[in-house]
């Protein structure tokens, strides 16, 4: 147990956390993040009250605010994580501190895990800081703690996957700028454009009565569908896109855990490749 603790809470992680929390920049980012979510919640609340004019218990308003906040938070995390993680290893290379790390007793795996946890830990801190905004929705009702818990699982898995993708590019490219561009390119294309592509694939190119099962790749690998299935109504309406194959409600809801499993598998594969690239004994020859 202490070996695992030492592996996870390794010096790289602790140093990154200490340095990141120093100064006002981190506090500023947290305030900005929570402020943006709060502003969105207030705008949606104002808009809903204008149309519904409900007094007291208003579950439909709560559900709408929750759906909007949940998806907006996902978009913010998609935008934040590559920025936090893609410079992790390329930055060490540019600063010429990577060799100093690799000649210590730390393994390449410890360096990679330390970097991943430091970057994703901050994204998770942002999520944690946003809890009071989500707490406001309890005033209206309309969603359950169970759904909030499932959504949190999808968020955590998504942040880890996005972190692993970013760190992989960070190890692949020597320059931080290139790594950041590559990570943003791949992540935003996949998460933001693949739902659109999935919808087009189904509704334009395939016979709706007999669609191919491989089309589900868009559902099972996209965090937006994972979150939609986990968050319940009204977000889960998104998963109806796949009704030709996932004919029952239970099958559509299962998207969230299937997404999580695939994401964790993908994350493990990417981390393994990153460690192989970083390990001086196995890395491709570089001057």
């Amino acid at each position, binding site marked *: 147990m202490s070996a695992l603790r030492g592996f996870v809470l390794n*010096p790289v992680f602790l140093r990154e956390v200490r340095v990141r929390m120093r100064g006002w920049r981190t506090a500023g980012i947290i305030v900005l993040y929570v402020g943006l979510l709060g502003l969105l919640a207030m705008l949606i609340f104002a808009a809903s009250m204008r149309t519904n004019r409900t007094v007291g218990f208003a579950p439909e308003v709560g559900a709408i605010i929750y759906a909007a906040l949940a998806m907006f938070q996902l978009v913010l995390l998609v935008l934040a994580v590559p920025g936090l993680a893609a410079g992790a290893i390329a930055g060490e290379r540019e600063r010429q501190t990577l060799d*100093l790390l690799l*000649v*210590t007793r730390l393994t390449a795996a410890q360096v990679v895990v330390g970097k991943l946890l430091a970057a994703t830990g901050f994204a998770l801190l942002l999520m944690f800081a946003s809890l009071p905004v989500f707490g406001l929705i309890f005033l209206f009702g309309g969603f359950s703690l169970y759904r909030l818990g499932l959504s949190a699982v999808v968020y955590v898995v998504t942040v880890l996957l996005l972190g692993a993708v970013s760190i992989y590019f960070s190890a692949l490219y020597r320059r931080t700028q290139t790594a950041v561009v590559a990570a943003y390119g791949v992540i935003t294309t996949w998460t933001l454009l693949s739902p659109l592509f999935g919808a087009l694939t189904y509704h334009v190119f395939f016979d709706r009565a007999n669609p191919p099962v491989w089309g589900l790749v868009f559902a099972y690998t996209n965090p937006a569908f994972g979150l939609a299935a986990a968050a319940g109504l009204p977000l889960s309406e998104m998963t109806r896109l796949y009704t030709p194959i996932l004919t029952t409600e239970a099958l559509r809801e299962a998207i969230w855990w299937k997404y999580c499993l695939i994401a964790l598998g993908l994350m493990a594969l990417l981390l393994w490749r990153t460690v192989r690239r970083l390990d001086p004994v196995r890395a491709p020859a570089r001057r």
Partner: protein
Amino acid sequence: MLRVEGLVKRFGDVEAVRDVSFAVEPGAIYGFVGPNGAGKTTTLKIIATLLTPEAGRVFIGSTDALKNPGEARARLGYMPDFFGVYDNLKVDEYMQFYADCYAVPTAGRDRLIESLLTLVRLADKRGAYVDELSRGMKQRLCLARCLVHDPDVLILDEPASGLDPRNRVELREILQELRRRGKTILISSHILAELAELCTHIGIIHAGRMVASGPVEQIQREAGARVIEVRLGGVPSGPDAGGAPAAQDGRLEDAAQVARAAPGVRSVAVEDGALRVALEGDDPEAAALLSHLVRAGLPMIHFAEVKSKLEDVFMAITGGEEE
């Protein structure tokens, strides 16, 4: 203490290191000398377990560094030729961080860091941010970092490069102190004069091959080059008589060209307004050189054998070529 056997390293089509072998005795300061691109840094990186060679073996004591890199790293302190420091980290935190990375026990660690910072003359900078230190201070801090896990062997790649004379002297004193404390030191440098004063042994690498290795005196002897110092008088007539520095240099270069054509001459260097001619052979060859220079009409005022310096040995062995 350190043994390197038959190292070969290729980068694509380029063979950077070819069958390099040498050994460093415990407590020795081994100077690793070679022109730029000769393969010094590549060899040091292989020893530091940062590169894997195509062939060859490296032993730190009895530890096979290529088979047990983790164990070797615990016995090695490595200082690269170029390195950076972290922003927003104080000197004490920097040392604590690397002590954590080397799994140095926390008990007594503060005292250890204090003593290392005192050794490298940075004790008063413990609370300063590392990115605000001068280059010389960063270099000394990096040396302290190398020592935090008390390694047997130090591998220092051009530690004096970019330092001003005062910092170089301080670094040399620190290295001598480390030798007194029993550390085995492998140091690469192109500042040969400094290595001559510091090292007990030298190894010369040229075009990826080890061309000489052993105690400094032995290498000087084995290089077999007699060094003749030649000084020229002023030119008695002509537009340059008066001797502007550029014109003096031009005359010396011309004279060096003439000397290179003489039989038995390995290399010629221009230094302190004189020619230093590395000559292979005995008195007849020296006489032939003298007569060659006189025939060429050079106004010699001094022709004498001098004690060879490490630069002369290096020039003699490598033929004065740069890669």
